[in-house]
C-alpha cells in the first residue's frame, strides 16, 4: 500500500512537472522580453514584479480572494442545485422541457453586465445580487449537459426498467442519474470556471458594497491607481483559483467514473 502510494505520488509529480516546465518557460520568456524591450510596468509588468506584488499585497489580496471564492463556491452550488433540478424537471416531461427551455436560454444569454444594474435595483442585498449574477453565468452548462445526459440513458436498460415496473423515481435514481453523471460532470467542469468568472464579473459590474470586497474590486482599484503589478497579481490569483477548481472537479470526475466510463479509463499511448 505504501509503495503504491509512493508510486502514485511519483506519477502525479511527473504529470505536474511538464505543465510546470511549460509555465516556467513562458514566464521566463515574458520576463526576458520585458527586460529586453524595457516595457514600463504600467503597460505590462514583468512576472517578477507581479510575484513581488503578490507577496507584498497578500494582506489585501488574500481576503479578497477568499471573498471571491466564497461567492464562486456558493453560486456553483446554486448552479448545481438549480441546473440539476431544472434538468430533472425537463427530463421528467418533454412538455415542461419544451415550455421552459427557451426561458433557460434567455437566462443564459442575458448579459449580466446589462442586467446587473437592474438586479441591484430589485435586490437590496449586495451579496445576494452578486450570487444571482454569478449563478446566471454558471447554471446553463450544467442544465444543458445534464439534460442531454438524462436523455442518453441506454434504451435497452430503460426497457428493462420499464419491464420491472420501476417508478419514475427509481428509473431516475438507478438509471438516468448514473447515465447522466459523465455529462453532468463535464458540465460541472465548465461551470466551475464560469462560476469563478461570474463572481468576478458580477463584482465588477454590481460592485461589492461596504467593506467586503473581492478580487474584482482590487483589480478595478489597482487599475485606477495604475498599480498594474497588483492588478496582474490579482488576475494571477484568479487564474490559479480557476486551475485549482478545475483540478478539483476533474479529480471528482475521475473518482466517480474511474470504474466504468470510457473517458476515465487508463489510456495506452
Amino acid at each position: 500500500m505504501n509503495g503504491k502510494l509512493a508510486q502514485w505520488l511519483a506519477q502525479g509529480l511527473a504529470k505536474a512537472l511538464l505543465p510546470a516546465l511549460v509555465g516556467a518557460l513562458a514566464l521566463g520568456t515574458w520576463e526576458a522580453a520585458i527586460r529586453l524591450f524595457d516595457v514600463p510596468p504600467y503597460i505590462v509588468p514583468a512576472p517578477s514584479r507581479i510575484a513581488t506584488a503578490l507577496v507584498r499585497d497578500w494582506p489585501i489580496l488574500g481576503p479578497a480572494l477568499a471573498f471571491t471564492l466564497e461567492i464562486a463556491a456558493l453560486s456553483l452550488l446554486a448552479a448545481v442545485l438549480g441546473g440539476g433540478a431544472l434538468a430533472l424537471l425537463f427530463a421528467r416531461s418533454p412538455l415542461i422541457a419544451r415550455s421552459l427551455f427557451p426561458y433557460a436560454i434567455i437566462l443564459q444569454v442575458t448579459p449580466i453586465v446589462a442586467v446587473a444594474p437592474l438586479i441591484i435595483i430589485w435586490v437590496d442585498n449586495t451579496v445576494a445580487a452578486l450570487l444571482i449574477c454569478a449563478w446566471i453565468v454558471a447554471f446553463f452548462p450544467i442544465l444543458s449537459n445534464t439534460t442531454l445526459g438524462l436523455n442518453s440513458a441506454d434504451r435497452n436498460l430503460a426497457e428493462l426498467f420499464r419491464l420491472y415496473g420501476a417508478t419514475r423515481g427509481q428509473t431516475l435514481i438507478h438509471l438516468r442519474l448514473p447515465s447522466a453523471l459523465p455529462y453532468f460532470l463535464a458540465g460541472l467542469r465548465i461551470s466551475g470556471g464560469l462560476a469563478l468568472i461570474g463572481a468576478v464579473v458580477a463584482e465588477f459590474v454590481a460592485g461589492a458594497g461596504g467593506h467586503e470586497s473581492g478580487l474584482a474590486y482590487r483589480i478595478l482599484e489597482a487599475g485606477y491607481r495604475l498599480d498594474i503589478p497588483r492588478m496582474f497579481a490579482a488576475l494571477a490569483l484568479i487564474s490559479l483559483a480557476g486551475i485549482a477548481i478545475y483540478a478539483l472537479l476533474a479529480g471528482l470526475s475521475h473518482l466517480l467514473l474511474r470504474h466504468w466510463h470510457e473517458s476515465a479509463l487508463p489510456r495506452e499511448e
Partner: protein
Amino acid sequence: MRPGEFLSLVGPSGCGKSTALRLIAGLIPPSDGQVRWDGGERPRPGDIGFVFQEPTLMPWARVLANVTLPLRLARLARAEAEARARDALALVGLEGFERAFPRELSGGMRMRVSIARALVMRPRLLLMDEPFAALDEITRLKLNDDLLALWAERGLAIVFVTHSVYESVYLSNRIAIMAARPGRIVAELPVVAPYPRAAGFRHGATYGAACAEVSAALGRAMAA
C-alpha cells in the same frame, strides 16, 4: 400460450424473434393485432422476467448491484435482496464475482449475470432471448437442467428463443418456428415427452425424431 408452458421460438436470424419477445413483454406496441392475456388482466411488474439478447448490464454498478436491481425496484429489503442475488449468481456459477464491474467480465460471464438477474425475481413468465448462446457446452447443459428444475418447481411459463434445435427440443413442450419477411410463425410442433427429462432423453428416439423434425421445419421456414 398456456400457463406453465415451456415454448421455444426458433427461426432464421432477423426473422423477428426478439421483436416477438418485446411484444409479449409489452415493451413495444403491436403495429397490428394485439397481445391477449388470459383473464384479460395485464401482468404486473415483476411477473415477467426478461433476458435480452445482449447482457444489458448497468456499467456503473457491480455485479451484485446489477443482479439485485429488480428486487430493489420491488422495494425488497437489502439483506434479503442480496441473499437472493447471491443464490442466483451461484446458480450461474459466478460466486466470487459479486464485486466485479461488468467490463471486467468475459462475454459469457456477462450473459450469466443477466440470466441471474432475470431469475432473481421469481417471475411467472420468463422471456429468454438466446440466453445460453455465449456459454460453453457444459455450463449450458447444466443451466438447461437448472432451468427445467426451476420451471418445474415454480410452475412458471417460459418463452425461450434459441438457435440450437437440440436445446429447443430438450427443453420445451412446444416449439414455434418463425420465418422472416414478414416475421410470422410458420409451424408449431409439440414435444411429447414427460418431465423430468433425464440425461438419457438426449439419446432416445423421441429426441432424435423431434430434432430432425424441427430442423426440417426450420429448413422450410428459411426457404419460404
